[in-house]
């Protein structure tokens, strides 16, 4: 095995098909998108090279800044509702004293298996200001707090983020919970013998050991927030006005509504860069490099 791993030719032969496949399927379209972002192109005819014009226009476009801000808002909401709440639920459900743990775990995962269309239709009905459940509940309680949940330009984006989080919270929870369950119980038992309380064990042992999983969850949540599209299309179509646009939705608008594919590619490139930057920051903050260096030194 070691002999084979030391053979660079063997490594090359075995990894080449995969690399070629990935390059053609994933890398080439991304590269094309980057190239086309420098063109004035309608998607059909030959484009005209315009250099950085699209980028200059994009940074002057109020729709871009609104989309960018919305992406940040959705990402923040997803981090709170998916990752932080997912972690909290994990800590709670790891306590054997809690009853119906299996039921709660299964319940949390049910929305994940539903299609996004079904979920959005469901929430669209619940949030309907005239006949929706939420406003009806307020009405029954005698409260005047009735909202146009999806037509209020100040809150619609938070609602969309919530719907997304509601659907995928179970997915993040399962990742965190599985990871927490795979931590050997010896550590927790030793801490218990030393007199640590449950919460002390959680904060000083469990959470630090979940760092790698948290990193993955954060990447999913943040890039998922930047990338959000389906919920906007199904719940508000980006409206009212451009209030719930995300960069993905802006790309769609530029390419398919305005027939400016080059400009659409520009916002797509910005989205890619935004996601890469977020992943980089998460890796730096959660110390992947430090760990790798430490591991390397240890090996040496």
């Amino acid at each position: 095995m070691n002999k084979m791993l030391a053979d660079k030719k063997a490594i090359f032969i075995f990894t080449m098909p995969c690399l070629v496949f990935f390059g053609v399927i994933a890398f080439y379209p991304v590269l094309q998108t980057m190239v086309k972002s420098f063109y004035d192109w309608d998607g059909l005819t030959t484009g005209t090279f315009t250099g950085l014009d699209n980028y200059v226009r994009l940074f002057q476009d109020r729709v871009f800044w609104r989309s960018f801000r919305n992406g940040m808002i959705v990402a923040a909401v997803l981090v709170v509702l998916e990752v932080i709440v997912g972690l909290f639920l994990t800590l709670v459900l790891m306590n054997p004293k809690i009853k119906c743990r299996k039921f709660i775990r299964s319940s949390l995962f049910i929305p994940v298996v539903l299609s996004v269309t079904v979920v959005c239709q469901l929430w669209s009905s619940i949030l309907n200001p005239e006949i929706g459940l939420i406003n009806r509940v307020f009405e029954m309680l005698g409260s005047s707090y009735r909202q146009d949940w999806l037509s209020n330009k100040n809150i619609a984006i938070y609602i969309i983020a919530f719907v997304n989080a509601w659907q995928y919270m179970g997915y993040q929870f399962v990742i965190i919970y599985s990871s927490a369950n795979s931590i050997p119980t010896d550590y927790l038992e030793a801490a218990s013998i030393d007199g640590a309380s449950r919460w002390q064990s959680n904060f000083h042992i469990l959470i630090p050991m979940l760092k790698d999983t948290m990193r993955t969850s954060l990447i999913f949540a943040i890039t998922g927030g930047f990338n959000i599209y389906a919920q906007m299309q199904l719940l508000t179509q980006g409206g009212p006005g451009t209030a719930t646009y995300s960069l993905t939705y802006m790309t769609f608008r530029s390419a398919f509504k305005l027939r400016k594919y080059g400009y659409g590619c520009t916002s797509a490139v910005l989205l890619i860069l935004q996601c890469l930057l977020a992943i980089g920051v998460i890796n730096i903050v959660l110390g992947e490099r430090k760990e790798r260096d430490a591991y390397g030194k240890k090996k040496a």
Partner: protein
Amino acid sequence: MKKKSISLFLTGILLASTLAGCGNNAEKAPEKKAESGSTETSGQESGTDVSRTLKLYTHYGEGEKESVDYAIKKVQEKYPNIKFEIEAHAQDDGQTLKTRAATGDMPDIAHVNAGDVEALSASGSLLNLDELIKSTGYSDKLLDSAKDLPYYDDGTAYIFPDGGASAILLYYNKKVFEDNNIKIPTNYEELSEAAEQLKAKDIIPCSIFAKEGFVIGAFFDMFALKYNEGGIKALSEAEAHASDDGYSKAIDKMMKLVDSDFFEAGSTSTDYDTAQSLFTSGKAAMFINGDWDISSLEEKLGDDLGYFESYPTADAGKEQEQNYYAFSGGFTYEGYAISADTKDQELVADVAALLAEASVEGNYIYQAKIPAIMDVDPSLTPVKEIPALAKTEAEEIKKMVFKTTWTHTMKNVDFSTPFVELLQEMLTGMDADELKTSIDDLVDSVGGQE
């Protein structure tokens, strides 16, 4: 060895019979089940010996399938050996078609609309039908009012049209007005008053699915048309400004209604089904949609369904002089186009012409769509009964004036896209002055663009 020879013998017999069967199939004329009134073409006419499979990209959902199948059957009466490889039209803003054109994989015949033509004609993907529209005899079949339909804004014919005129109507529920003793409005003042009375009774004056851009564009036109028949089209072409006296008055009127809860709460996220059910259940007294919804609405409301002969948005006493018959909507540029790369273009054009003509008949028979661009055989009988109100509207539409356009077929997408977004913002808190300024900025920056 014996077994081997027996199996070889049997295989030979099987192969021979299969080939013979194929031969018989090829010689067999296709079964013809002519609809009532259809005329069977004789095998002597050109076409019987033409054999080809054409790629047809058209709307083939549950609602359209019968019409398309009927049209294909009509084509095969003349061209029995022409087969169709049907590809269902995706609801994707023409993206599939544009992508296929970009990759040189255009279907031979495609059902297109103005948005598709705008992009596909620029790339030279569509066949110029200027001559073929005449040589196929299709232009002779069109009514005088529809003679110009095949021609796009650039003066070139790209389609064999199969659609017609559609008007955006302001429907009302007679029973709601009668039960609450409210006068059906005929002008803006009466409309405002009716809206107040309806709200006092806890009834939504009007339901709208403003999630869709064309509906809200039509709502704007309902007011603007009273001052300028060009409506939003004039704005998109920079021939008018929102700050012009007429438009300014129209926006003020419109905003006054919007600010006084004329529509249901959450109208910008309301979809068609919800808005329609608010109306048909009596929770809303009025409803905005195209005339294609008459059948569905009449099914639910029966004789209680009505629509305004003229939008009740004119000033009191000036109903007749303020463009009484100006309506939002009009003829839509849609029909069958042909790929510029298709072989034997004259043959394909003849097939497309037959398809378009038979589609008009099919839409009449199976979808109760009254033909607006050509006369159909009077002996044809619709499967569904055409609602009385639809018949009335089919007569009324001849008087209607369509000088504006739909937001979704507007050529100037740089104008239409942000314009619809502005109108949505108008429904969610933008004030009249801000709206006028924003529209003027839009007109000055992108109005009149090709």
